[in-house]
């Protein structure tokens, strides 16, 4: 799924997150893929997706701006691509 930051997103219902010192492990029970979220900020963004109106809002709520914001949106795009996050209402 292509990431559109203006849309509402959420962690996929078949995905579990496990906190780790570097961030978190994410495991998708459907695709059986494992991803490593390599920063606590990314974990916070991903966890807040479901409660905020859009992907952009989740990034802003984490205080991300400029180059950082772009990096995190690319990370969200990668997570969307692998199905770890999905648009709300589409899973």
């Amino acid at each position, binding site marked *: 799924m292509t990431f559109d930051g203006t849309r509402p997103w959420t962690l996929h219902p078949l995905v579990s997150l*496990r906190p*780790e010192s570097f961030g978190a*492990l994410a495991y998708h*029970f459907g695709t*059986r893929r494992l*991803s490593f979220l390599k920063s606590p900020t990314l974990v916070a963004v991903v966890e807040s997706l479901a409660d905020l109106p859009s992907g952009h809002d989740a990034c802003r709520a984490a205080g991300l701006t400029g180059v950082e914001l772009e990096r995190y949106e690319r*990370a969200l795009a*990668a*997570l969307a691509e692998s199905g770890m996050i999905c648009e709300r209402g589409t899973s």
Partner: protein
Amino acid sequence: MTYAVGAPDSGAPAGPGRLVERFEQGLDAPICLTWELTYACNLACVHCLSSSGRRDPRELSTDECKAVIDEFERMQIFYVNIGGGEPTVRPDFWELVSYATEHHVGVKFSTNGSRITRPVAERLAASDYVDVQVSLDGATAAVNDTVRGPGSFETAVRAMDRLAGAGAAGFKLSVVVTRHNVGQLDELKELADRYGAQLRLTRLRPSGRGAEVWEELHPTAEQQRLLYGWLLARGEDVLTGDSFFHLAGYGESLPGLNLCGAGRVVCLVDPVGDVYACPFAIHDQFLAGNVRQPGGFAAVWRHSELFTELRRPQSTGACGSCGHYDSCRGGCMAAKFFTGLPLDGPDPECVLGHGELALAGRGETAPPRPSLDHSRRRRPVPRPVPVAMMPRPPDRPCDESPLATSDQGA
């Protein structure tokens, strides 16, 4: 499992590079945990890594297994790779599978296929949280049955038929690569494709009964090179459980994290609750504790002396001066140990040939023997197995480094 690095990493390319160091220092819980539920098996594969055959009277009871699952849930272990023995011969196998999935612990189990009836296949097809691996070690009965026993090819194929018929798309066909089946890689891939299955290849280790046949069965240096090229060409289309990270010494790494995860991100819980550093290391030297001890599995994982030691920086020994060390990281600990090589030296199948030299220079001392043997009877090298029993499924998922597994399933 296929892993992707879904996160920003300042400046560095998004590769697992830095994570490898984190992993070598261990995690709060394993990424990949193998759990052998029983040493009982209705097969008697010549290379069985756990020397299975007879049930051990001390095996964990149903209630004890459930308590272990509760603990896995608390530790947020996403899934366990269940093997044996043949795990499905445990009368409470399906009860435990259901219990695990109800408690958010996914199950991947290895089987020789003998208990995959149509109703079982249908049930497996219906669950997102249960994944099955059918073990087969040749694309033909002739090659497979020599290792796994008469009739075992037919049994596995019948199981695959039923799984495919029930719509269990994406189950795994799991193959231990040997000198005799390495020439059948294309045929094995075709076989998997025919059933909508995913091919998974793993490395033969000199573990368990495998120690007795390793010399005769492990791929030759030339075959290893061909295997490497074949795997490289298929990328993530073929799973390996990170089995072949020692081949990274050829140059390009295969998909996977390429490290030995023993006691760091992987471990084994055996049927009696003993916790070993990895499924291929059933030996007292790699025994970290038992889940029946106070503190249970978590205490063993987090605080055992052995695992603490494994998470410290390891000596690179004789490999330290090799320019390829960063690629292969010295190879497989169990392969070294059970061939009598020093743990800080080259892997016996080192692609640069250092392992062969080391093997030649071992001297007279016999390599360590596995600490346990549940074989029904001692059996010499590969040759057709007497009819009495049928072989068992060796490969277990997570074999090894789970991490490495770059797969959609392993």
